């Protein structure tokens, strides 16, 4: 091992970056010359008159269930799609690849508009349904690609060992490949899910009541956009922090045996 001679340089650099960032924040607050008042938001978390959850909590619930359903839907469709992408049938494989390319190479916002205004009108989909469907398909394209890459990387020696002991293909897939591949997919999957929760804010444009839509409504009534966006950002951050922490926890727990 080499002695870590330069560690103090990194300490100084990090202190400088932290100082720079906080002074930038401080300066912008100063120059805004704005009286901050977060107290009013309390009523939007919990309505004092009716004693029911306020706009923001309702929005949080919206974001929560739309993200959750899209993640579940996206994972299921993505795994099936990934299987098709590695199947030997060329037409099926090609079609799945085109599907993945289309959904990965167009903006989610555009996908949402197409789904809601064209498909949604034709099939009479509710905004929530159109949103969940779009996000699921968008998510599935990434899940499929993560799955495909991990299956192709699967160690041929493991496959040989499983065949040599006389397991048939279904047993190899279920007992040998699936557990190893799912573990290796986990970090990339969690990253994808976090990004999906953030992308779910886009469904507000087709007037689905999610967190972002609630923020817009709160601002429309209170005219206090600074505080509102600030708080909404923190809520998104907490939501995703919880998700990625859980992912890291799973990864640590499942790592036993794979990397030592």
């Amino acid at each position, binding site marked *: 091992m080499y002695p870590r001679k330069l560690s103090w340089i990194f300490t100084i650099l990090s202190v400088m970056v932290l100082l720079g960032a906080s002074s930038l924040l401080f300066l912008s607050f100063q120059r805004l010359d704005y009286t901050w008042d977060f107290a009013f938001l309390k009523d939007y978390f919990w309505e004092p008159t009716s004693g029911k959850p306020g706009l923001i909590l309702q929005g949080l619930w919206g974001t929560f269930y739309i993200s959750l359903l899209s993640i579940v839907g996206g994972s299921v469709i993505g795994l099936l799609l990934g299987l098709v992408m590695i199947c030997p049938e060329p037409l099926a494989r090609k079609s799945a690849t085109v599907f993945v390319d289309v959904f990965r190479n167009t903006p989610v916002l555009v996908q949402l508009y197409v789904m809601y205004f064209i498909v949604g009108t034709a099939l009479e989909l509710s905004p929530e349904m159109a949103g969940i469907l779009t996000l699921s398909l968008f998510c599935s394209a990434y899940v499929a690609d993560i799955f495909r890459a991990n299956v192709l990387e699967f160690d041929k020696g493991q496959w040989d060992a499983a065949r040599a002991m*006389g397991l048939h293909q279904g047993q190899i897939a279920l007992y040998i490949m699936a557990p190893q591949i799912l573990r290796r997919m986990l970090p990339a999957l969690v990253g994808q899910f976090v990004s999906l929760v953030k992308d779910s804010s886009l469904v507000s444009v087709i007037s689905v009541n999610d967190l972002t839509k609630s923020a817009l409504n709160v601002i429309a009534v209170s005219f206090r956009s600074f505080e509102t966006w600030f708080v909404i950002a923190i809520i998104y951050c907490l939501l995703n922090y919880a998700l990625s922490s859980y992912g890291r926890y799973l990864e640590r727990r499942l790592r036993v045996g794979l990397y*030592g």
Partner: protein
Amino acid sequence: MVKAESQQGSDQKSQALISLRSVSKSYQGPQGLHPVLQGLSLDVMKGERLSLIGPSGSGKSTCLRVINALETISGGEITVCGHTYGQSSLPVHKIRQFTGMVFQRFELFPHLSVLENVALAPRLTKSWAKDRAEAKAHELLERVGLKDHVLKYPSQLSGGQQQRVSIARALAIEPEVLLCDEPTSALDPELVHEVTDILQDLADGGMTMLIVTHEMAFARRVSTACLFLEGGRIVEQATPDEFFDNPKHPRLQQFLRILHA
């Protein structure tokens, strides 16, 4: 039906557990077809221990891998315990269950504990209950001297220990023949004996074995016969003493000279 056929099959081939008849195989290489096995014929009788020896690229490993149908062949016939690939009514994965295989790089399943690695195959291929399979695994792991490591994961073991687990795993399906593909090549020199000792024990217990190895002293000790492969053919087959002390084929003489130099 299957039983009747297997009975008849084993009668025809007398005691040969494995028999290869004019087996050939080629790889599609950069310069066209590259032959690896060229009309290789070989019989492994019950209780025999054959060592396959030869320079790299001579087809030793491929010879083992085709016996397990891990590789396809382009010509010839392979019969394992009376079942010929492509002709038997048994599916390929059932025929593979007559043989156990030990790999150069162990190939233990990293997501399973040592115990689960060994118990998996009997549970799935013989439909044994968990208790029975684990009892068998405990017994085998004790035999390879690893009863204190059953709950560890492969990555927590040394190379020699991993290879011993993989021997136990190969034995768990109670194979008729043990195929060993360079079982000590990936080990640190001081760990080699851990594995060769176990294989020697198995040999003494009457296990039929086909071993690809570069450990000449081990081959000489353990084998009933040594085979020299060159260019996908067997060019010499002799008892170990004859093979090492009095080699006939000039290519084998040269090979042994280089080894001893």
